[in-house]
């Protein structure tokens, strides 16, 4: 699947001299909402483009992206969707490893 929107937002941010955080699914195990390569770009104001899987772990990754924008460290985040977090069974039941990095022009 092409990631035009994400690459467009990335180019546009860099041209304005703004940094972004990019979260990319590096690996999946079991049943996950999105597959390897899925991307979410997070801007310093917290807005984002693209998705790595909606409710399933996205909020957690968004927070890591905001942290990466702050400290500049690349990190690998493991999102475990096999445990029901709110008492409800999630549709997805796998594990995703997501690479989160800060990028700037």
């Amino acid at each position, binding site marked *: *699947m*092409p*990631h*035009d929107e994400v*690459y*467009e937002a*990335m*180019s546009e941010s*860099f*041209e304005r001299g703004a940094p972004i955080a990019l979260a*990319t699914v*590096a*690996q999946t195990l079991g049943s996950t909402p999105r*597959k*390897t*390569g899925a991307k979410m770009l997070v801007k310093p104001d917290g807005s984002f483009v693209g998705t790595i899987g909606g409710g399933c772990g996205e909020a957690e990754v968004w927070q890591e992206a905001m942290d990466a924008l702050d400290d500049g460290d*690349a990190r*690998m985040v493991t999102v475990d969707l096999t445990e029901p977090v709110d008492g409800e069974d999630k549709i997805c039941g796998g594990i995703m490893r997501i*690479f989160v*990095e800060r*990028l*700037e*022009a």
Partner: protein
Amino acid sequence: MANATEIARALLTAAREGPAVASCTVMGATDGVDISLGAKMLVYADSELGDIGGGALEQAVIDFARASIPKHIVQTTAFTPSGDLVEGRRAIESADAIVEILVEIVEPAATLLVVGGGHVGLAVGQLGAMLGMEVAIIDDRQDYANEDRFPYEAKVICGDFGEELEQFPITANTFIVLVSRGHKVDELALRTVAERGAGYVGMIGSKRRTRTVLQHLAEEGLDPEALDKVFTPIGLDIGAETPEEIAVSVLGEIILVRRGGGAQPMSEYGRLLASPRR
């Protein structure tokens, strides 16, 4: 070294216009390995942009990435710091040091060229649009080649099959489905597109009819290797009956060609795993 802006622009160009590029990102490394996390390199068919630190590892990644371009795959692969592939979970876990590289093929949406705007063409185009393909539909009959007939985004071309197909740009990212009103038209269409390096050419018809078409074209002197690659009769054997079901069967075959796969119910693999090895 290429900066992030150049890389971002190159990725955007690749996604919108092509040519395809393999985008390589260092996603992980064992402690102590001298490589920078997040380093990016774009590998084109005949050049590179950016680097991941040089050496044997970089060369191995370039070779691997370049070979991945025609496969349209996205995957994270482990290498040793000296550039050997490490495959399988056990090997990865027991390796002294590994570097993980995500290789993604970035390219424009695939084109689905549907020859014939009848019931099957209509359904094939609809499913292709749903799958994110750029759909083009050709027919020489105004009733079957007008925008109103296709309630989805498609480029509708009304004109002579031979002339229109000759002008239509075909690349390895073009998937062609021949479902016109008769095998004479399909034969003409196949003659025009067979040798042009499409990612997929499939032609509808019975075994007997399609064999006759292939024979005619072989006798005319078309490249036997190109004719051999034509998927005909078209589609996966799922017992499809209706135009919509046939569309599922055809697009299933296209996904199979594009992404690779075993074309079996997943449960079959489960059974194979469950059955004791002999």
